[in-house]
């Protein structure tokens, strides 16, 4: 059995190239769902899901609609200008409430929601970024028995986000982007 049902990836400034590499490194048979939360501009129509989709490897990145059921072997990207929540019956719920950590989508919001629904079946990965979103959400995931990886701040284009996450979660695994890739490539 796969060790996780969900791999949740949070990133902000400087994280997009790493997200692309991670997605490319996923084994094609992965059984979990990948949920990516990135800070993005609001009200600027962007096709980030296309940017992250690499057709040759068959990594298809999809922005879920409200109440869409989470499927294994799928990659989801939080739609811009909504928070992404998860319902107990394992479907997505979108939410247009106030910004959290100056962000919508906020990584904390999704991580906290995943922690309460999936408990120990979540792996959280937090990458480069310039604020401290994700730290509290990672704490919720760890305290519900999940696991967490933080990008080594020394390798991050913007170290504030990984650093804040580590301050709050000293037990999280610290890995370079290559380390994270290796970890994911052997996790099916």
């Amino acid at each position, binding site marked *: 059995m796969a060790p996780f049902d969900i791999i949740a990836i949070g990133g902000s400034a400087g994280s997009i190239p790493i997200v692309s590499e991670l997605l490319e490194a996923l084994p094609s048979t992965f059984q979990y769902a990948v949920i990516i939360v990135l800070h993005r501009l609001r009200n600027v129509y962007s096709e980030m899901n296309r940017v992250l989709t690499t057709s040759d490897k068959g990594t298809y990145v999809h922005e879920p609609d409200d109440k869409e059921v989470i499927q294994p072997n799928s990659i989801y990207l939080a739609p811009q200008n909504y928070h992404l*929540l998860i*319902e107990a019956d394992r479907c997505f719920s979108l939410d*247009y409430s106030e910004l959290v950590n100056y962000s919508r989508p906020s990584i904390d919001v999704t991580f906290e929601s995943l922690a309460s629904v999936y408990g120990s079946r979540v792996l959280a990965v937090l990458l480069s970024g310039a604020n401290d979103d994700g730290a509290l959400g990672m704490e919720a995931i760890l305290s519900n028995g999940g696991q967490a990886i933080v990008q080594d701040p020394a390798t991050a284009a913007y170290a504030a986000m990984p650093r804040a996450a580590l301050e709050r979660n000293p037990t999280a695994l610290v890995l370079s982007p290559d380390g994270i890739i290796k970890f994911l490539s052997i996790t099916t």
Partner: protein
Amino acid sequence: MMNLTQITNGEIDELISLIRHNYGYDFGDYARASFQRRVLRCMDQAGIRSFFDLKYELTNDQTFFNWFLQNLTVNVTEMFRDPMFYKSLRTTIIPILASYPTIKIWHAGCATGEEVLSMAILLQEAGLLERSRLYGTDLNPANLERARQGIVPMQYMKDYTYNYIQSGGKNDFSTYYTARYDHAIFNKELRRNIVFSQHNLVTDQVFNEFQLVCCRNVLIYFNRQLQNQVCRLLTDSLAPLGYLAIGMKESLIFTDVRQQFDVTDSVCRIYRRKT
């Protein structure tokens, strides 16, 4: 946000039946994930530490309930949110609405009215405002009170101006309002054919027939079953060949009414009632 107060699913059930029983609002089929966040947020803001205290306040204090209700719903909105959507209205929908002698539009779940003002601007620019009637409704009376004043905080005007231009707006946006200290008041002229009134999508009925119904970013707060029920109400409120617009990430796929519509704009989620 999160303080560490937690609240169980059973407690949420209890809270919902208390509110239903004492005040008549039914949140039973709201999507739980966000509803729970809202309850925790309200408790946090009011400095209420336990579920017991929350129940006590809600049972004994009508003023507290009013405040609670006001903060329980997600009241966030923007002018010209999703400029692409407004562009699609300008280019595709409004030219068709122009053929009706009177154009009736319903904004269900209009929050503080920014969406209705945006629509009034589109109609004004198309020369149709005079023969249009816009109805903005919401569950939350405090939102409607704000909406009637036509006031928008000044701090957002830069974003709204940008959205307006992105939506294809060609005028100087500032001619639509007067700046007053920290807020902008939208011109009376623009608001003359707008009516705001309370309407609860869960418990109230069809009240008129419309050529266009906008219900954007409201369905996301409902579970599938309630989405289905509300979509039926929205459909029954549409004239044959009328348009339904929902949020960019909302979908009719899980509803019974989906066969009654053609897709007019699949990205902006605009549908046309078949007959």
